[in-house]
């Protein structure tokens, strides 16, 4: 029964993906600028024939609906097209960039949760205390500090002055683990390469803090407010009345129920992070999706941006689906796909 519901919900994602595909296709073509012209850059001596040849080579001279139809057909066959700006297959580019982004996003969300969960609980339990006030101020700091600024300050403190952590990049040369999955941390564990593991973790710290600061702030606040709400609930009082120890009341009864809104927000935040954060990736020289996509937009690399947004849409839909399934686990009253 539940399996069927999940499947139904997964199928509902198809029209969304189709919508994303069409929207991004049209969106890119609405942008002023011509990919061939951009590719040729400052080339002089270019004849109109050469430009026309290039245009037809990339199917840019077909009418829009023909281009769209053929693009959709190719996507269905699993071909995301050819990237003009990087002279490479889009699928290959995305496969290379995705692990980097996912690794960073997961690290960021882990850091965010590691900060947000205890802080959210403590601030709710110690409502209106000094710790509540000060961590609320911190959370606003997290929300209102631009990531690039936070990033460069972190680099200056921890890399330049203290020399504890590397400034940027994913791994030091010589400590790149051999390729298995593309996730450096996972790869170095799989290959039993301890120095590489340490190195890739060290490289992850600063960017994931810079990236996780804002989600940490948002999640802290949502956990705090939903904890405040559940702590007022009768079943929490009742649990205390049963003689349950205070920490167990907070964790088992209040927090478990407070998790529901937190899961929604965390899901949305993860979705956002998986799209790659161009700003953080630029500051930390992190070869991920964000840079790929923004660079793709600037060079009007239609296939690249389309492919990347499709991947983004897919991860978004998947994360939402997982969040949905989590809901039903957290709140037995719900059936999959029933949230408002």
């Amino acid at each position: 029964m539940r399996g069927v519901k999940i499947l139904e919900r997964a199928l509902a994602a198809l029209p969304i993906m189709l919508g994303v595909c069409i929207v991004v296709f049209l969106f890119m073509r609405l942008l002023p600028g011509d990919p061939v012209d951009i590719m040729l850059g400052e080339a002089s001596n270019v004849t109109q024939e050469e430009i026309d040849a290039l245009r037809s080579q990339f199917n840019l001279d077909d009418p829009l609906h023909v281009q769209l139809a053929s693009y959709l057909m190719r996507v269905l066959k699993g071909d995301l097209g050819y990237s003009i700006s990087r002279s490479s297959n889009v699928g290959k580019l995305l496969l290379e960039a995705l692990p980097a982004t996912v690794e960073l996003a997961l690290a960021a969300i882990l850091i965010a949760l590691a900060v947000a969960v205890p802080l959210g609980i403590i601030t709710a339990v110690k409502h209106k205390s000094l710790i509540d006030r000060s961590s609320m101020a911190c959370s606003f700091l997290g929300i209102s500090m631009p990531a690039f600024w936070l990033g460069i300050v972190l680099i200056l403190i921890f890399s330049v002055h203290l020399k504890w952590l590397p400034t940027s990049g994913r791994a030091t040369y010589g400590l790149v683990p051999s390729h298995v999955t593309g996730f450096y941390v996972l790869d170095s564990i799989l290959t039993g390469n301890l120095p590489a593991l340490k190195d890739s973790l060290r490289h992850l710290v600063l960017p994931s803090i810079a990236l996780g600061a804002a989600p940490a702030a948002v999640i802290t606040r949502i956990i705090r407010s939903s904890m405040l709400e559940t702590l007022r609930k009768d079943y929490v009082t009742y649990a205390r009345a049963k003689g349950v120890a205070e920490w167990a009341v907070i964790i088992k009864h209040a927090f478990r129920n407070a998790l529901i809104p937190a899961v929604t927000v965390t899901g949305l935040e993860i979705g956002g992070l998986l799209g790659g954060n161009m700003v953080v990736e630029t500051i930390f020289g992190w070869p991920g999706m964000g840079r790929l996509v923004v660079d793709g937009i600037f060079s009007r690399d239609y296939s690249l941006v389309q492919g990347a947004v499709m991947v983004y849409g897919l991860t978004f839909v998947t994360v939402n689906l997982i969040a949905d399934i989590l809901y039903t686990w957290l709140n037995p009253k719900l059936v999959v796909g029933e949230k408002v």
Partner: protein
Amino acid sequence: MIRGESTQASVRRRLMRLRLRLWAESAGATLKRLGRNKSAVAGAVVVTAIVLAAVLAPLISPYSPDKMNLNDRFSPPGGEYVLGADHLGRDVLTRILHGARVSILVGLITVAISIFTGGVLGVLAGYYGGTLDTFMSRLTEVLLAFPYLIFAIGAMAMLGPGFWNLVWALCFKGWVEFFRLARAGVLAEKTKEYVEAAKVLGRSDLEIMGFEILPNIVNPLLVVGTLRMGTMMVMEASLSFLGIGIPPRIPTWGSMIQDGYRFILNAWWLSTFPGIILVALVLSVNLVGEGLREVLDPDLQTF
């Protein structure tokens, strides 16, 4: 029938008058209760001070915001320039004061437009349901599955630079969140007794949506709105980072932070001061929001 209608109209008029009086009374009560919340008062004081400083910027700032003195670039704080001079020899304090206007305006307008658009569409979709709702919900899901920055960059490329274009670019997707909040709120409220009662009384859909449901769902919109104001200001900074934003002559905190971060090694004051004031504003706006929330609707979830 005409008589009947006119009676109904006069009843409505009287109801409206009563409602206005209640509004005024409860506004007073709300403000009074808000006044007892110390942190809300502190927040309100800071917000007011910043807004005042912004409005009075030309009177209190020692320089003109776009007056550059290239030979004074990177003058450290404390000297002739209270908070130092930037990389073009402009007074940082002056630019912060003038920047307040545009920054606050960007935050306020984008959030206002987003709340309005999202709110109206959300109420309509939630109230009428059906095809409209399905279409709008699918559309928002598609939009949510689209990275925000891509939207903003694309929109700026399409519209070209300029203050209003930036506002549109930021609103492009900003309304989605409010749409969802409003829709969810209406779905929860529309089955309640008071809505049924209003229907039985023969009030029009518009009146029910506007006077009955809206006041009950407007709160979460406003609370999230206060938070998003800060996000929008930071977003403006991110767009500046990518090289598309407000024309450079108009100072904004976001673009000041962005301009300054590259010089943080030799001139930390360029980006630090606007950063501090941005945090202070966002914090205070949210303190006020939090205070309002506690006064008006203690059960509301905020984040």
